[in-house]
C-alpha cells in the first residue's frame, strides 16, 4: 500500500510554473532520490507535500490523511495532521536557537505528541545517541558545527517517528569536510527502514542508497526508475545532458 500519494500537483510562483502536474506514489520503505537541474521544483515538491508551500491544485494523501487543493477554509486541521505524519530536514538545519540539542529533539514530542517531559527526554536521548551526539546534548546550536547541527535536526525529525521523511538538500549548506558525517547518518537512517524522499546534489550518494530515482525537469517527472536505470540508461536527452555535465565536474583535468 502506498504511504504517500500525490495526484496532479500544480504550483506556480506568480507566472512561473514550478510544479506542473506531479503524480507520485511512495511505498513504505522506499528511498527515493530526487535529482534534476536547479530551479526545476525539487525543493518546492518537498515543501508542497507538507504544505509549507501552498500548491494551487492537486491532492496529497499521507496514510489516512487526505488534503485536497486549493486549501479550503477549515482544512487547517488536516494540514496539521498530515505534517504530524511527515518529517522534514532542511538545508539550513533550522534548529531552535534558544534550545539545547536535547530540548530541540524533545520539543515536538512534548508540544505535538503531548508526551511528558521524562518520556520525551528518554526518547530524545535515544535519538541523539543514534546520531552520535550524546556528549553534545546540552549544547546550543550556535556552538555546534554545521554537520552537528544537521545531525541534531535529523534526530529531531526521527524522534517524531514520521511515516515519511523529506530531506531537502541536507548537505548543501555544509563545508565539504562535514558532508560525510551527515551522509553517514542518513545512510544509517535509511538502513533502519524509514521511508525517505531525498533531494540532493550528491549523485554518488543517491545512487548508492536510493531504491528509486526521480528526475525532475520543468516541474515534471521525466525519469522514474531504479538508480541504475536512471543514471546509466537515462531515456531522455535532458537527463543525459545533465549527468554528462555532472560527470565533467567530477573530472578536474578536463578543464584544467
Amino acid at each position, binding site marked *: 500500500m502506498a504511504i504517500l500519494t500525490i495526484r496532479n500537483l500544480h504550483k506556480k510562483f506568480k507566472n512561473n510554473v514550478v510544479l506542473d502536474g506531479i503524480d507520485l506514489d511512495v511505498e513504505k520503505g522506499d528511498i527515493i532520490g530526487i535529482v534534476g537541474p536547479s530551479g526545476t521544483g525539487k525543493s518546492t515538491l518537498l515543501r508542497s507535500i507538507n504544505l509549507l508551500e501552498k500548491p494551487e491544485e492537486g491532492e496529497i494523501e499521507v496514510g489516512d490523511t487526505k488534503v485536497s487543493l486549493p486549501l479550503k477554509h477549515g482544512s487547517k486541521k488536516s494540514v496539521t495532521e498530515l*505534517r504530524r505524519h511527515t518529517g522534514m530536514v532542511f538545508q539550513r538545519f533550522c534548529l531552535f536557537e534558544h534550545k539545547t540539542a536535547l530540548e530541540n529533539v524533545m520539543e*515536538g514530542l512534548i508540544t505535538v505528541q503531548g508526551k511528558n517531559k521524562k518520556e520525551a527526554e528518554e526518547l530524545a536521548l535515544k535519538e541523539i545517541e543514534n546520531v552520535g551526539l550524546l556528549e553534545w546534548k546540552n549544547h546550543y546550536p550556535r556552538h555546534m558545527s554545521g554537520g552537528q547541527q544537521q545531525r541534531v535536526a535529523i534526530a529531531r525529525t526521527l524522534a517524531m517517528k514520521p511515516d515519511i521523511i523529506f530531506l531537502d538538500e541536507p548537505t548543501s549548506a555544509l563545508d565539504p569536510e562535514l558532508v560525510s558525517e551527515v551522509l553517514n547518518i542518513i545512510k544509517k537512517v535509511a538502513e533502519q527502514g524509514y521511508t525517505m524522499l531525498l533531494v540532493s546534489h550528491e549523485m554518488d550518494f543517491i545512487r548508492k542508497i536510493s531504491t528509486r530515482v526521480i528526475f525532475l525537469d520543468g516541474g515534471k517527472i521525466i525519469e522514474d526508475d531504479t538508480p541504475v536505470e536512471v543514471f546509466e540508461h537515462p531515456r531522455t536527452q535532458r537527463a543525459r545532458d545533465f549527468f554528462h555535465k555532472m560527470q565533467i565536474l567530477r573530472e578536474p583535468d578536463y578543464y584544467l
Partner: protein
Amino acid sequence: MLASFSDYFSFKIVWSRMPDLIKKIPITLELAGLAFVVSLFVGLLIAVARYKKIKVLDPLATAFLSIVRGTPMLIQLYVAYYGIPAILRIFNSWGADINVNLIPKIVYAFISLGLYQSAFTSETIRAALESVDNGEIEAAYAMGMTYGQILKRIIIPEALENALPGIDNSIIGLVKGTSLASTCGIIEITYQNQILAGRDYRYLEGYVALAIIYWVITVILERVFKAVEKRTKIPESPAEISGKNSSGLKEKTSFISKVRQRHGYFDHKELA
C-alpha cells in the same frame, strides 16, 4: 568676612532632605509602573499590527509613532492633562455622566507617559519578533505545531531574549520621565523637592538629593535587569554550559579551564 562653603552648599541639608523625599518614592514607582503597563500593552498592539501588517491598523500605528516621536513629552503630557477632561466633557454634553473632577491627576500622567514610551517599546518588540528566523518557524510548522504553539514555544521566548534589553531601558526611561509629571501637580519626588525647597530656598541641595535618589533607583533596577537577562540569555561559550550538571548547578571548574574559558579556548575535557 569670607563666606564659608556651607553657605552655598551643605551636605548636611542634602542628607536631611532625604527622608521626606524617600516618602514619595512609592508615588514615583507607582506612576512608572502603571505607565509601563500601558506602554507594554499599547507597544505590543502596535508591534503586532506592524509585524503582521494588519490592514488599517498598520498605517494608523505608523502615524501614531510619527506624532509621538516628533513631539516633546512635556507637550504630550499637557495635551493629555487638558485634553482628556475636555473629551470627557464633550461626552457628558452628549448625555454621558462622568464626574471629571473625580479622576485623579495620576491617570492623565500615566496614560500620557505610557503612550509616549509605547512608541519606543513597540519598535523594540517588533525588531525582536522579526529577528526570529523564519526557518525555525517553518521547521516548527513542519513538525505539526499550530501557530499558537509556535508563538508560545518558539517566537515569544526567542523574541523575549532580544527584546529584554530594550524593555529594560524603557522602564528606566519611564522612572526618570515621571519627574515631568510634577508639572501636572502630582506630588512625586520631584514635586516634593520643590515644595521642601520653597520653604528654605535650598534648591541646589534639594536637586542634588533628588539626583542621588533617581540614580540609586536606576542602579538598583539595572542590577535586577542584568540578573534577569543573564538567566534568559543563551551562554556565550560552550564551556559555560558544560560547566552545568544536569541539576542546573554549576560544578567547580578547574583553574585551567577557567583560563581557557576566559580566552575563548574550547575545553574538550569539559565535555566528558
